[in-house]
């Protein structure tokens, strides 16, 4: 194990053959007699990676295991080549963590709190102060940074949590439900900030969220957990490039037979009842063919809407597939 760790770390230092952002090898975690993570294997290279899954899937357990709160019962994880088992402190020093729930010291000003967190991560006091101001400016705290954190609104507390996770310049940022409790404007701002952080290219982001829209908006890779196992993964960037295009249509009057007409045209059809269909289009299919087919059948098209495979579709498909397998 030590040799493997050294090799990985050396690869990182040399800058050649860079280790992946996060590599999980057969990671199992048992808590209170229950297996929460079950032989999880994954390699993550994307700059912003979404961690999805239903409640109890093991998302928070995975994040907290990476932080060293829980000891794996078997397996290991590597953050940029540093082993969780043998170099846990190093892993903690290159990770920034923004927890889901409140995390602040009521009587401290935002500047003091974030600076203390920076110093605990190893920044010298002067550098910690400088970077605290940088981080708080970056998240848009303005002069409010001198107020006590206990007096902040939910949105401001979220920004302080993000600043404390960023202040020491982590290589991997773990964000647990970062948009929780935010109004639409603040949520949009938070997502923008996450993209800006990753934009620099030196900080990878692992975003754990229930909100598929948030994940879809910012992530370029998604990992879906179910019952402690990796149920699916998806490269959103390439998925968007090659995403299947659908048409949602509805006939007037409702005609269930129209589905078989579309199938004869070579389309993959999903009947949704009451004359409504979701039709997967092929690249060589002229869209006008659908109108002609409807006219030939004496039907009108009441609704005709182009749509794409959304993350929700992908997520639901993974959940159903996995359910089918189990």
């Amino acid at each position, binding site marked *: 194990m030590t040799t493997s760790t050294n090799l990985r770390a050396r690869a990182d230092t040399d800058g050649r053959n860079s280790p992946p952002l996060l590599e999980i090898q057969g990671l199992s975690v048992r808590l209170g007699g229950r297996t929460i993570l079950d032989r999880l294997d994954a390699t993550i290279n994307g700059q912003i990676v979404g961690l999805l899954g239903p409640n109890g899937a093991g998302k928070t357990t995975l994040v907290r295991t990476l*932080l*060293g*709160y829980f000891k794996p019962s078997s397996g290991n994880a590597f953050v940029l080549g540093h082993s969780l088992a043998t170099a846990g402190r*190093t892993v903690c020093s290159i990770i920034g963590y923004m*927890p889901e729930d409140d995390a602040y*010291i009521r009587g401290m000003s935002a500047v003091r709190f974030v600076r*203390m*967190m920076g110093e605990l991560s*190893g920044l010298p006091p002067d550098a910690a102060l400088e970077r605290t101001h940088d981080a708080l400016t970056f998240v848009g705290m303005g002069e409010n940074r001198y107020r006590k954190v206990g007096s902040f609104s939910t949105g401001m507390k979220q920004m302080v949590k993000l600043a404390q996770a960023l202040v020491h310049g982590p290589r991997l940022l773990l964000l647990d439900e970062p948009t929780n409790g935010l109004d639409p404007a603040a949520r949009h701002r938070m997502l923008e900030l996450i993209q*800006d952080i990753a934009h620099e290219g030196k900080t990878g982001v692992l975003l754990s969220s229930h909100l598929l829209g948030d994940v879809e908006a910012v992530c370029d890779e998604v990992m879906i957990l179910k019952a402690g196992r990796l149920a699916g993964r998806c490269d959103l960037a390439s998925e968007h490039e090659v995403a299947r295009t659908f048409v949602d249509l509805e006939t007037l009057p409702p005609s269930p037979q129209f589905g078989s007409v579309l199938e004869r045209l070579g389309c993959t059809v999903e009947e949704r009842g009451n004359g409504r269909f979701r039709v997967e289009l092929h690249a060589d299919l002229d869209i006008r063919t659908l109108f002609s087919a409807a006219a030939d059948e004496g039907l009108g098209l009441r609704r005709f809407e182009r749509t794409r495979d959304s993350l929700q579709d992908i997520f639901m498909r993974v959940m159903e597939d996995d359910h089918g397998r189990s």
Partner: protein
Amino acid sequence: MVVRDRAWSAWEGSVTPASRRFLVLTRYALKDVFESRVFLAFYILCLIPSAAALLAIYFSHNTQFLEQFAGIDSWFAKAPNWIFLHLFGWQAMPAFLVAVIATPPLIAADIGNNALQVILARPIGRREYVLGKMVVVFLLLSPITWIPGLLTFGLQAILAGGQWTAENLRIAVAFFVGHVVWILVVTMLCLAVSAWIRLAAFSRGALLAIFIISAVAGRLVNTVTRSSIGDLLHLSRAIESIVLRFFGAAPPSGLPSPANWLTLVMVVLGALWVLNLRLRAVGEIK
């Protein structure tokens, strides 16, 4: 109009040594403690017994100046023995009050709003966290206990000469070891209480209650059993007995020295256990 670069850069400079990082917690906590001017005033008042002892030692060796005040010079001539016998108590009691006033928020403030989960997500473990907080209490109490105690002893040693120093070296040992043991016990109790009770007023009450209840329980057991076995529960008597033995004086406890040490060890271990239970829960998923 100010245009800001919205990009965020990683830190690529040097970092502080990991072995000393727990002192960051100590530094911030000490600054918080001394932010209160009332506390600062009380803390300065706690130095008065030690300052008075230093003056008394000085005057006991310079009685010519005091000869003009009838009777006082003869008291000062006997002062050193009396001072050393009582100074420990005059220092230990205010030190306990300082701990009771200053320590309740030490851990409670971090646990209250879950800050501990982001503190422990840094490269700092639970042990270092506790160590950082222990050092706060040690640094807070040392300047009003064993440091002035040893200074007083040092002044007396300089003025009285080598023979007195050689004959009374145990006084210096008593001041140092006695106070360090006292500080350790008080520190562990304060941290354990701070970890469990969020409101400072209740924490202070609980700390006082621990000493009062242990004293009452100890005396009750002694009365019922007509023995000294209850002294095992009597925390303040155990400490007093240990310190007096260091001074070479008769202890108030009827139990042998190991029994008094056992009481202290059990209290410290109990506090550690309670502390561990609380800190281990941080990061647990509800």
